[in-house]
């Protein structure tokens, strides 16, 4: 499943990386502690978080995440958005909670794998 299908299914708003939505998703990881995400997330994951500061872009690009979903209506900070555009990192936003978006993404990817 690619990122674009997730954007459509969960009605996410695309804030950056609109040209990177064909990226194949391998999984997901939910967390706000950057060390936890660094240690436990994987390449091709969608990272679900409520952190909006610019350091999330470095983490996502070091881990080669497919994209970042900001939850609960949080918007990326201006410098975050600048870095994400420059680095080609998709940032997607949703009004959903981390719990809900994680569950729905899990279901989507799970269904695809069956």
């Amino acid at each position, binding site marked *: 499943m690619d990122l674009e299908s997730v954007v459509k299914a969960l009605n996410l708003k695309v804030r950056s990386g609109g040209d990177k939505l064909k990226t194949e998703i391998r999984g997901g990881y939910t967390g706000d502690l950057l*060390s936890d995400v660094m240690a436990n997330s994987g390449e091709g994951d969608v990272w679900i978080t409520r952190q909006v500061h610019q*350091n999330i872009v470095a983490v996502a690009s070091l*881990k080669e995440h497919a994209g970042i979903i900001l939850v609960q209506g949080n918007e990326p900070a201006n410098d975050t958005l600048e870095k994400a555009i420059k680095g080609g990192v998709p940032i997607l936003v949703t009004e959903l909670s981390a719990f809900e978006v994680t569950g729905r993404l899990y279901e989507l990817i799970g269904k695809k794998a069956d």
Partner: protein
Amino acid sequence: MDEKPLYEGSFPVEGGNFDHAGEVSTNIKAILRQIGLSKEVIRKAALVAYESEINIVSYAKRGMIRLRVVPDSILIEAVDEGQGIPDIELAMQPGFSTASQKIREMGFGAGMGLCNIKNFSDVFHISSELGKGTHLKMVIKAKALQ
């Protein structure tokens, strides 16, 4: 490590400046990828470099990350000028942190950094002097490299 290195360089890191945090690690990752190391080895080295960089940004005045790549291993050293660590055993405990509220709000300072570095390295050495700074030395084995 007398072998001729495939790469050798050092990267300055500014303490307290989160605007550029992660840039050195991103740079190091690109260098390792260019050398053609395996994904697994690059994944480990990028984490080790990132956590070391964040530690310098979070706790030191300034520091340096040194990278040395030889055919069978990567050496990453993080040397900083800072307050030093009074009790290394305590600092190595998962969850122990002296991070400020500001640092924690950004999702750093969860007391996982040093543990992560140790877990992702094949050799880990830490020394620190109060009022002077901290020195980390990590080796990641890269036997897959041809």
